[in-house]
């Protein structure tokens, strides 16, 4: 695999391979020394055009645990603020000879464009409202860790589905692994066109009890300004996932950061059925697996193709 731009780049076997790799890496994560030498001497650039805490830090941690060098660039305070185009920024960064560029952009398709402009492997860390493939992979990992398989699993994605790149990637990934996906929320935020992505569309939570997994999305305050919602109060009345609506055997997920008391009530966040912190932990091992997958098979940037692939072995002291 050269790049990871979209879940559509993957098939079921590719997803399963990455998740298996992540499971192997996960065993290392429990050891006292968590670092692997696999990507020693490789350069990973995190290019973030949008604010992000957990995605950026987990990519950074993932690269460091694989012994890669990491360069973090954020839009504020960089040449981007001075009006440099994406293409020129990439040309500049490419001069450092990065092996991988992890990009987060407010614009759909930016990672795919980047892949055409650089020899580095490109990993999409979220592009506009389009795709967030590593989030979907870590969500699959989290669920398989708990359930063993997604085959026949009934997953409800609840909230602002229209503006969610997480939802788009998750619908595709969950379905590829055999799950049934329902998207639910107010009609202004859950248009019927989601049916064409293979999801069932619901505009109430009445039947949510049928779900094995409830995946709540973050509600953005700007939706009120867009007049897509009359008020947060009304939203919570109909669509908040709380202990009244969530059954005791249902698992709860959320991509973070959570608006406590809005899309989720406090008690369900802190309940044992919540997998939210498992998702964060999975973020590191799955991103390690993705970095390994795109880089370990490829020769280091600038070296001849016959140089040896680095081994996935624990670093020995």
């Amino acid at each position, binding site marked *: 695999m050269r790049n990871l731009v979209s879940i559509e780049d993957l098939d079921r076997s590719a997803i399963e391979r990455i998740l298996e790799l992540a499971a192997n890496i996960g065993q290392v994560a429990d050891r006292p020394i968590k670092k692997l030498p696999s990507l020693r001497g490789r350069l990973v650039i995190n290019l973030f055009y949008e604010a992000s805490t957990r995605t950026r830090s987990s990519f950074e941690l993932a690269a460091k645990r694989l012994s890669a060098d990491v360069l973090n660039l954020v839009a504020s305070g960089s040449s981007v603020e001075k009006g440099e*185009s*994406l*293409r020129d920024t990439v040309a500049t960064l490419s001069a450092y000879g990065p092996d991988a560029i992890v990009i987060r*952009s*407010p*614009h*759909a*398709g*930016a990672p*795919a*464009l980047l892949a055409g402009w650089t020899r580095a492997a490109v990993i999409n860390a979220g*592009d*506009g*409202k*389009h*795709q967030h493939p590593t989030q979907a992979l870590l969500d699959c990992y989290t669920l398989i860790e708990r359930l063993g398989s997604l085959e026949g699993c009934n997953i409800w994605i609840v909230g602002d589905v*229209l*503006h*969610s*790149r997480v939802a*788009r990637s998750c619908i595709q990934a969950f379905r590829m692994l055999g799950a049934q996906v329902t998207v639910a929320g107010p009609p202004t935020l859950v*248009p019927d*066109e*989601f049916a*064409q*992505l293979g999801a069932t569309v619901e505009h109430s939570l009445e039947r949510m009890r049928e779900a094995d997994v409830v995946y709540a999305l973050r509600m953005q305050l700007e939706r009120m300004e*867009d007049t897509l919602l009359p008020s947060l109060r009304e939203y919570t009345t109909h669509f908040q996932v709380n202990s009244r609506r969530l059954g005791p055997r249902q698992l709860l997920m959320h991509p973070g950061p959570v608006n406590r008391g809005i899309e989720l009530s406090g008690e369900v966040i802190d309940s044992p059925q919540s997998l939210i912190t498992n998702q964060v932990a999975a973020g590191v091992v799955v991103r390690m697996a993705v970095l390994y997958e795109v880089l370990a098979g490829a020769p280091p940037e600038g070296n001849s193709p016959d140089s040896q692939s680095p081994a996935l072995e624990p670093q020995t002291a």
Partner: protein
Amino acid sequence: MSTLAAVSRPPAELLLRGASVLDPNARIDGRHDVLVREGEIAEIGAPGSLQAPAGAQTVEAEGKHLFPAFVDPHVHLRSPGQEHKEDLETGTRAAAAGGYCAVVAMPNTDPVLDHPALLRGLLMAAARDARIPVGFMAAISVGLHGERLTEMSELREVGAVGFTDDGRPVADAGLLRHACRYQLLCDGVLALHEEDPSLSGVGVMHEGAVSVALGLAGIPSISESTMIARDALIAEHERARVHFQHISARSSVDALAGARERGVRASGEVTPHHLLLTHEDVRGLDTSFKMNPPLRSEDDRAALIDALRDGTIECIATDHAPHARDEKNVPFEQAPMGTTGLESSFAVLYTELVAPGVITLELLLERLSAGARLLELEVPLIAVGRSANLCLFDLDASWRIGEAGYESRSSNCCFAGREVRGRNLLTLADGAVAYRERAFALSAA
């Protein structure tokens, strides 16, 4: 009162021998010799019957098709102010290459064409630079701000073909009503870019299954059709003459058809890209497919073809909208809207609609010049005594759009790379040779 301007060129002295001549307006369909003297069609005779007079060139046109040249009521020549995209010279060269003998340029330039002095200057520039006659539409509102009317009457006296805020809608119904009333004083078609800003929002493509899949903000078809319905009612009330630009949706076609049935003086145009492409083409996020109005659904496309066929939509306009490479080489949401079209329009429509039998060649030819009639300009005609406005096509020649570059300064063509049939060899505009394909020699008699 409309003024078209171009560089003055020596009038053609030309004998076109044995071409298949087709002009639905002149009711000519058959092999003929056509003699052009001093830029006028002097004689039309049986093949082999005409002799080239001394000094005239002969074109051996057997197996080729001679058509009345096309007129585009809607192009962006980007002058003044955006000459890095296009200028009067490159834009009219592109038009001549596509078989056009006249084009009408839109006023959303920098500065906006909203003042008589600017129009005077542009007409002078066209007389210096334009390879084929160019007419100019002036803005309806000063600066395209939608607040105050331009000096429409004086603009008409200087030669404005009509008025438009193209690129933007006239959102304020009151302002449009006043423009309609003012039209009684000065004439000139009001050409309307129809879009309700409150429905389009920050949309960058058609709202539908593809925009939902890609997570892009959508522009619903009702953004266009509700405004067509509104403005048809305003035009009806004021008995004004309006022209709806680049119609893209079935609901818009229905609104226009309804208005026409009520006797509203309304016409419409459609672009080659809305006739041939859909929002499915946007899936790859190639910015060549980003235009306004956006490419819509297959159902919309079918309605546009039907409307073109039954005459609800009377003409084809390219909305030729050049943009520099660097401007389009950005993420989809950031890219400017528009595609070039002058050099590809006949070939793509012939290949995709005429060759498979969806529409006839006669209908295509009629619709490619009907824009002239709608804007009250002269419609090119292959008839003795008329100025030579002709194009000569090889309908068997296959080529790939953009394979040899473009005459336009810009290359943002949504049809780039398509294999097409039908290549223009020669264009005569207002009696002079405006384009000759490189390999196609004019041999002296």
